[in-house]
């Protein structure tokens, strides 16, 4: 009998949780963060989340995650990667440039991945995102200046 009571109690808890948060129709700031994360990944890989090449349950998040962080350059939008090669800088500098740029890409992609996590509460919040993005931009501007000259 006590077993039955326990089960009923658990059932009540689950149902209350469902009605409270309206499972299936939940709207929260975390939802916007997911869209932001996906947008971020799309921005730097040039791939839509509905890209037809994703198959077998793969999505933009898992596609990027598979190549992160070591093969980030392979999945970037081709128009972004082509740039440092076109620039006619000495070979040493070019290599320096790619590694620093790669670092920026990795930090940017990391934010995109952290925002598009499946579990809403684990997603990065907008306060941290804004702070991180501004930090990356500062570093990017700095490295641009030192490498350019």
């Amino acid at each position, binding site marked *: *009998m006590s077993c*039955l009571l326990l089960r*009923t109690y658990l*059932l*009540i808890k689950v*149902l*209350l949780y*469902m*009605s409270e*948060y*309206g*499972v*299936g*129709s*939940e*709207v*929260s*700031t*975390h*939802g*916007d*963060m*997911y*869209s*932001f994360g*996906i*947008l*971020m990944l*799309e*921005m*730097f890989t*040039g791939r*839509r*989340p*509905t890209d037809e090449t994703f198959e077998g349950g793969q999505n*933009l998040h898992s596609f990027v995650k598979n190549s992160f962080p070591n093969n980030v350059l392979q999945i970037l*939008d081709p*128009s*972004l990667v082509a*740039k440092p090669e076109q620039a006619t800088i000495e070979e040493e500098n070019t290599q320096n440039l790619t590694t620093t*740029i790669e670092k*920026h890409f990795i930090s*940017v992609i990391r934010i995109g991945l952290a925002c598009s996590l*499946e579990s*809403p509460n684990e997603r990065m919040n*907008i*306060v941290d*995102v*804004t702070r991180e*993005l*501004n930090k*990356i*931009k500062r570093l*990017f501007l700095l490295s*641009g200046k030192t490498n350019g000259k």
Partner: protein
Amino acid sequence: MSGHIPSTIGECIMLEYLYLEGNSLQGIIPSSLASLKSLRVLDMSQNHLSGSIPNSLQNIHFLEYFNVSFNMLDGEIPTEGVFRNASALGVAGNSKLCGGISELHLPPCPVKAKKLEKHHMFRLYAIIVSAVVFLLILSVMLTICRMRKGNKKPSLDSPRIDQLAKVSFQSLHNGTNGFSTTNLIGSGNFSSVYRGTLDLEDKVVAIKVLNLQRKGAHKSFIVECNALKNVRHRNLVKILTCCSSTDYKGQDFKALVFEYMRNGSLEQWLHPRTLNTEHSRTLSLDQRLNIMIDIASALHYLHHEYEQSIIHCDLKPSNVLLDDDMVAHVGDFGIARLLNINSTTSKQATSTGIKGTVGYAPPGIM
């Protein structure tokens, strides 16, 4: 003696004393023993009997002594009849026996071992079914309550649309050459967007005309008006005015007027091949970083800085517009949600029906 106790022993109804102790009897105690109504002494100790003590034995009125010690019996000891008197009982040496009166000092029987009788099972099912039905009704009622609450809000908020300066249908009609397709710059779920000018100024504006035939379009108009009427941020599209009147045919006409964004949507820049526009250039890393920072600060404003928390619910490249200086402005608040910070600490609201876009909406929403 060895072998089983024959169940036909129940036919010896005159039997008063039965001593079977110290043999090698096996098998169970036959329940037919209960028909020996005049039995006074029953001693079956030091055998190899197994199974349980038949409950019916407690109905033998004259039984004064009952001994089954040192067997291999298991199960529950009855508590009535001869079993009420501990001094008349011998049950020692049966490690699996349980229950009985407290004087025997045996462990209580586990609930599982109790055989649930049929009507008990039915009662259990009835309790479970009624509990489930009750909880379902409860959750349905709670959901209805919530939906009502959700529906009330917009109707309270809608009069505030009037605070925006209004513009007539005629001036919008003139400003877009009668909503000609050459001025059409985009169309969404509930609306078409035209490029046009307003009467008094030469300024180019974007006019979002709601397709009121579509279900939900009217609601989306109110939601967007409420979301945008007071927001002020450099990374949000600026609403200039709205129009809520009737067209020349006398039908309802609703439109929102926004600042025009010359560089189109982020969608057109990220995927230029799919749309044959004049934008053939691609965005640099620098520009992309800036656009992401713009979108992030717009979201930061909506979620944390505005008086109410606003959830956009449909953030995607086609809803991010770029102005002359490539500064990003988040637009299209047609399915946005306003959250009252005071009432919801967890910052959540329930939506009713309209969802975001596949690919951009979080898992669980679609």
